[in-house]
């Protein structure tokens, strides 16, 4: 069975501090990993996916198959990064994404 674990419900940092949102997954096949974000009063949207190997809004995430992790990182947090972040797992065997429980990031001034 597929599973995504986000161990932190809430992560609070000060502006300018580094951020790391943790995501671990359980899947025996070759995974596709994503980070989705929901800003206040906005709809859930894709932030980045591992296959693109891109940096979006200063965020990066590296797939570590040995540790089955896909942590989201940003070197210097901004107040506008405050949002709910969800890690998600896709696979060829299942047509729908499996989401984690989410982490709320609060960036304080």
């Amino acid at each position, binding site marked *: 069975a597929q599973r995504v674990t986000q161990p932190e419900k809430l992560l609070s940092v000060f502006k300018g501090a580094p951020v790391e949102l943790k995501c671990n997954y359980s899947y025996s096949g070759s995974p596709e990993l994503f980070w989705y974000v929901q800003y206040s009063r906005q709809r859930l949207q894709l932030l980045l996916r591992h*296959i693109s190997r891109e940096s979006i809004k200063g965020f990066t995430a590296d797939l570590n198959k040995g540790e089955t992790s896909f942590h989201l990182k940003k070197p210097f947090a901004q107040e506008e990064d405050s949002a709910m972040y*969800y890690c998600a797992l896709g696979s060829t065997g299942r047509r729908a994404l499996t989401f984690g429980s989410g982490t709320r990031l609060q960036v304080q001034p």
Partner: protein
Amino acid sequence: DVKVTQSSRYLVKRTGEKVFLECVQDMDHENMFWYRQDPGLGLRLIYFSYDVKMKEKGDIPEGYSVSREKKERFSLILESASTNQTSMYLCASSVPTGGNEKLFFGSGTQLSVL
């Protein structure tokens, strides 16, 4: 840009009522999904559909059914609403790419069952 529209932003229903949640997308996407979003539990998949009249159960289908008579519309039905179905319901659509698809979400329907 893809538009996924959910017909109601807020809905209040009574226990035992039959409830219909409607979702329409305008980009000819094959895949459509219904998730519920609960604090501390994240998004959980209820049902999804990969073609007209085709559907598959997700992780928590009990108490729900779905209908997809047209490609652009995917309806979630609560046959007899119960208080534990009070939740935020999110509809999404995507083009199938073998597990790597980008989901486009609607703005959600907050359902309260009294």
